[in-house]
C-alpha cells in the first residue's frame, strides 16, 4: 500500500499544479453562468473568444509582442556575442574590471531602475516605441556571461588555425566561435523569448498606445475590472495570449527545459 502513496501524491500535486490552467480553459469554452456554477455537462461555446477577440486589437498586440521579442533577441545576440568574445580574447588591461562590472549588473535589474530608465527613454525619444521597451534589456549581463562561457569551451587550436589561415578577428568570431556556440544560442533564445513575451512592468510604463502595446499590457487592460468583462471572457483572452508560448513549450518541451538549465547552471 505504502508504495502507492508517493505516486498518488505526485499525481495529485501535478493535477493541482495544472488546475488553474485547466479551469480557465474549461471556462473559456462555456458561457459564464455555466462556468461559475460548474455545470460540467453544459454545452461548449466559442462565444467568449468572439467577444474577447472583438474587445481589443489583439492582432496588433500579437504583432507588437512578436516584433518586440525579435528585436530584443537580435540586439542581445549582437551585443552579447561581441562582448562575450572580447572576454575570452587574450587578456588586456581593464578587461577583468569590466567583467566584474558586468557581473554586478546581474543584480541591478532593469525592473528596479524604472524611475530613471523612464527619463532616459524619454530624453532619447524612445517612449511609446518598441525600441524603448527593448533597449534596456539588450546589453544583458546574463547574455554576455552566457556567451563568454560558451566561447571558452572552443578549443584554442581552432582559433589559432583560423588566424593562420588569414582570418581577421571578426572572421574568427563568425567562422569558429559562433558556429561552435549554436546550442547556447538556441538556449538563450528560448529563455529570452519566454522572458520578454511575458514581461509586463516596463512595457506598461513605456507604452501608451495601441501601436506599441505588447500582449501582456493589452491583456491587463482588457481584464481590468473597469472594463466589465466577465470571467469567461477574461479566461478566453488569457488562453489566447498564452497559447503560442504554451503550444511551443508543449512541442519543444525538452529543448525548453534544457534551455533553462543551460542558462541557469552555466
Amino acid at each position, binding site marked *: 500500500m505504502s508504495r502507492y502513496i508517493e*505516486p498518488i501524491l*505526485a499525481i495529485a500535486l501535478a493535477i493541482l499544479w495544472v488546475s*488553474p490552467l485547466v479551469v480557465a480553459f474549461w471556462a473559456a469554452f462555456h458561457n459564464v453562468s455555466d462556468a461559475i456554477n460548474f455545470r460540467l455537462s453544459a454545452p461548449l461555446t466559442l462565444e467568449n473568444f468572439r467577444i474577447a477577440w472583438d474587445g481589443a486589437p489583439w492582432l496588433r498586440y500579437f504583432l507588437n509582442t512578436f516584433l518586440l521579442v525579435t528585436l530584443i533577441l537580435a540586439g542581445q545576440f549582437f551585443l552579447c556575442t561581441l*562582448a562575450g568574445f572580447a572576454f575570452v580574447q587574450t587578456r588586456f588591461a581593464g578587461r577583468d574590471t569590466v567583467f566584474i562590472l558586468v557581473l554586478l549588473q546581474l543584480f541591478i535589474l532593469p525592473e528596479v531602475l524604472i*524611475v530613471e530608465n523612464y527619463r532616459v527613454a524619454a530624453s*532619447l525619444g524612445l517612449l511609446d516605441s518598441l525600441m524603448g521597451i527593448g533597449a534596456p534589456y539588450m546589453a544583458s549581463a546574463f547574455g554576455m556571461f552566457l556567451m563568454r562561457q560558451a566561447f571558452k569551451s572552443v578549443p584554442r587550436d581552432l582559433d589559432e588555425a583560423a588566424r593562420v589561415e588569414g582570418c581577421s578577428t571578426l572572421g574568427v568570431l563568425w567562422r569558429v566561435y559562433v558556429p561552435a556556440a549554436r546550442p547556447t544560442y538556441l538556449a538563450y533564445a528560448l529563455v529570452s523569448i519566454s522572458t520578454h513575451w511575458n514581461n509586463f512592468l516596463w512595457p*506598461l510604463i513605456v507604452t501608451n498606445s495601441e501601436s506599441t502595446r505588447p500582449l501582456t499590457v493589452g491583456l491587463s487592460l482588457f481584464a481590468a475590472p473597469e472594463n466589465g468583462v466577465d*470571467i469567461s471572457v477574461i479566461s478566453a483572452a488569457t488562453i489566447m495570449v498564452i497559447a503560442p*508560448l504554451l503550444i511551443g513549450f508543449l512541442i519543444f518541451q525538452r529543448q525548453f527545459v534544457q534551455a*533553462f538549465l543551460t542558462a541557469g547552471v552555466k
Partner: protein
Amino acid sequence: MAGPRAIQGPAMTDPLKLERRRRAIHGWLLLSPALAMLTVFALYPSVATFWTSLWSRGTRRNPSEFIGLENYRALLEDPTFWKVVWNNLLYAGVTIPASIAIALIMALWANSRIPARSFIRTAYFTPTVLPMIAAGNLWLFFYTPSFGILNKIGALFGAPSVNWLGQPDTALWAICIVTIWKEAGFFMVFYLAALQTIPPDLKEAAEIEGASRWTYLRRIVLPLLMPTTLFIFVNAMINSVKLIDHLFILTKGGPSDSSKLILYYIWENAFAYFDRPAAAAMTIFVLIVLGLLAAFQFLVLERRTHYQ
C-alpha cells in the same frame, strides 16, 4: 651598449607588444557597443537615481531644490514604506522556503520511477512559461468571493465564504501562493539536473549499509544538492523583489496596503503619485539590498563554483 635597438625604441618593433596592443584595441572595440548600452541603461540610471533622491519634489510653484538626505528621512518616517518593507520580507520569507521545498519534492518525484512521469514533469513546469499577468487572471477563478473555487470547496465542508483578495489578513497570502505556483517548477529543473549527476552507486552503497531512504536523502542527497540550493536561493531572493506583476491583476496592493510590495510601491510613487524623488530614494534602498545579495553571491558562493 646603445645598439640599434635603443635607437628604434622598444615599442615600435617588438612584435609581441604590437600584437598585444592590437588585441587590446580589438577587445575594447568588441566591448564598446555593449558598454555603451550598459552605461545608458544601467550605470547612468543608477547614478541618476541617487542624484534624483537628493532633490525635493518639484511642483509648479516650488521648483525642485537640493535637500540632501531629506527624502530618506521622510521615507523612514513613512509608515506605508515600513508596511511595504514588512510585506516584502514576509513575501520573501514565505515564497522562498516554500518554493524551494516544493521544488525539491517535485524533483525527487520527477526523478523517480513513477507512473505518468512525463505528465508530472510537464505539469510542474508549465507555470514557468506563463506570464505573471496571465497567472493572475487564472487565479482569479480561485479567489473571487462570489464564484471562487476555494469558497466552493470550503462550502462543501461548511466553511464560510471568504473574500481572499479583499481582506487584509489573506490578500498577501493569496499573492504568495501564486508566486510559489509560478516558481516551484522552474526551480525543480535545477534540482532535477543536479539529482541526475549523483552517481547511482551511492544509493546502492547506502542500501547495502541498511540506511533508510530518509537517511540517504538527508545525509547524502541534500548535502550534494547544497550548491544548487544556494543558486536557487539567490534567484528566489531576486524574484522576491521582481515578481510583482500579479499584484496589478489581483489586489493592486490593497486592501489598505496589506499586499503592497516594494517594487509596486516604487512604481506607484513614480507613475501614479508622480513623486519621483521618493521613488528614487526607495530604489536606492532596493539597490543596496541587491548589492548585498551580489556581495554574498560573489564572496561566499563563488568559492565553490569558479568562472574560469
